[in-house]
């Protein structure tokens, strides 16, 4: 139930915030150094030491993995499999555990390798 609602919520977040940022990023990238400096300034902007844009990007990374994993779950269920209560619940919980782990992994790598 919760995971099914999360699938929609993360899908809507990715559709609007995710694609808006992707489009803005590509456009800034193609518009010369000045435009990209502005983009980078927004990404690195800190409000009283809180990196706001970074939090949004981490959030969208989690949305990506949650939507991806629960999407796989829905594809499996489309075949008529995994409707048994126990299996279904385990699968649902695994999507959340997996999405949190993968998000942590990606951002530890990004911030650790310090690009």
């Amino acid at each position: 139930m919760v995971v099914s609602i999360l699938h929609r919520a993360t899908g809507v977040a990715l559709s609007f915030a995710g694609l808006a940022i992707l489009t803005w990023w590509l456009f800034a990238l193609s518009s010369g150094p000045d435009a990209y400096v502005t983009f980078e300034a927004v990404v690195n902007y800190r409000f009283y030491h809180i990196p706001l844009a970074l939090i949004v990007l981490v959030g969208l990374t989690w949305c990506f993995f949650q939507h991806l994993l629960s999407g796989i779950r829905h594809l499996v269920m489309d075949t008529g499999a995994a409707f048994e209560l126990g299996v279904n619940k385990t699968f649902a919980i695994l999507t959340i555990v997996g999405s949190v782990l993968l998000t942590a992994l990606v951002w530890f790598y990004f911030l650790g390798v310090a690009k």
Partner: protein
Amino acid sequence: MSLGESATPLGRVRGLGSAHHGGEHWLTERVTSVALLFLGTWLLASLLLLPKLDQRTLIEWLHAPSGAIPMALFVVVAFRHALDGVKVVVDDYVHEEGSRFAWNLLLLFLAVAGGAIALFALARIAFGTVA
């Protein structure tokens, strides 16, 4: 629109049923989801594997066919999948026929415009001279 009592049973139900596009929409949503499984993973892996994330490195990446082609596919498929997905949410929650049509029209325009902007930017990088 009421046809009154003179309408035949067929006349009363005509135009109220399925448009017969539901199956196509359902399938498209799933086909694009499988494509995005690959393209999304490719995008994230590429960003992780690039040595730096400065403008020069990113432009070199998207200038090469190996970056530009999958990214073009990602843009097109992601906008299509987003449009299909958000349409399901609109159809579920907006019950009044007029507003539902307006929402779907707005979202269609938004997705096409967004996709066009992203593809234009990508083309400018892919066919431009490397900065």
